[in-house]
């Protein structure tokens, strides 16, 4: 069993992400520790076995030809004004809910449940529509 302290360091060492000092530290430790040396050896063998096994699969020559035929038959999905309207509705709903929450602050106990449900529903619908449309959430990078 490799030393707990060095197990992750050895994996980092094999991933080539360690600095010079840490690499030297791992090498020095492995030189004097049979368990860690064996673990390092297994990881090296595994690394080269994986590199060989995964290889470099590439799409076939027919890939682009088939894709272009599909592209020629596929229309764009334009949302145009609907897209802008959805965004406007989303921002407006958030603003209205926020404003309503502030106005109703003195009666918060009375309306808190319904307001929370409405807020979650409106924002959830908006985010869901944006995610389905764009494949990502607003502001996601």
């Amino acid at each position, binding site marked *: *069993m490799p030393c707990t302290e060095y197990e992750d360091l050895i994996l980092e060492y094999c991933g080539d992400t360690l600095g010079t000092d840490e690499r030297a530290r791992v090498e020095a430790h492995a030189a004097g520790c049979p368990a860690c040396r064996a673990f390092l050896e297994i990881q090296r063998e595994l690394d080269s076995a994986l590199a060989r096994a*995964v290889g470099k699969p590439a799409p076939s020559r027919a890939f682009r030809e088939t894709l272009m035929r599909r592209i020629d038959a596929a229309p764009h999905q334009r949302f145009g004004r609907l897209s802008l309207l959805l965004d406007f509705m989303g921002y407006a709903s958030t603003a209205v809910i926020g404003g309503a929450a502030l106005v109703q602050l003195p009666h918060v106990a009375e309306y808190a449940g319904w307001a929370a449900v409405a807020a979650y529903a409106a924002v959830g619908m908006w985010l869901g529509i944006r995610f389905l449309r764009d*494949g990502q959430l607003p502001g996601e990078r």
Partner: protein
Amino acid sequence: MAAVADSEVVAHLEAGRFREAFDALLDVYESKVFALAYSVVQNRAAAEDLAQDAFVRIWKGLPRFRGESSLSTWIYAISRNACLSGRRRWVAGAASPLDLPEVRAAAEVRHPREDRHAEEQQTRDLLARLPDKYRRVLTLFYLEDRSYEQVAGLLGIPIGTVKTYLHRGKKELGALMAARGKGESRECPALNTKI
């Protein structure tokens, strides 16, 4: 290089030249999206189908790209969704359960003294036994020239998570290999890991 190509794509999009934009992005992202698809299904033909589905979605969505995120982030997000939903369809529609890599891997018994090609297949079979998240990270790591950043970008997860999955996947794979090497022993003394 990719940044230059991305700006070229965006320039085409802003000018409404969608076909030129698509051709330009295909040159840069074809191998990346294919690698992502391959990491999900571990099968070249199925990966081609998934990558094509992803590119068709990208093509359809091109007019909606508004630069809120980087082009690569947008492409990878669409590709991930296409690949994961495509894998569900592929698993559900597999001609036989034996077509699935994990089932094939579990069913295959190989003689230890086979050629190098067989050893590679053996490693792929063991890889197919790992949980999906580890298998995807391990496959992409080697397909993307050991770049943590590229793997993180393709899968949409933090670099720290990539490292964690990579390390855990390697530990599990090492244990599986050691077990196979010791005649299917259920314990790996070198790693002190029970399988």
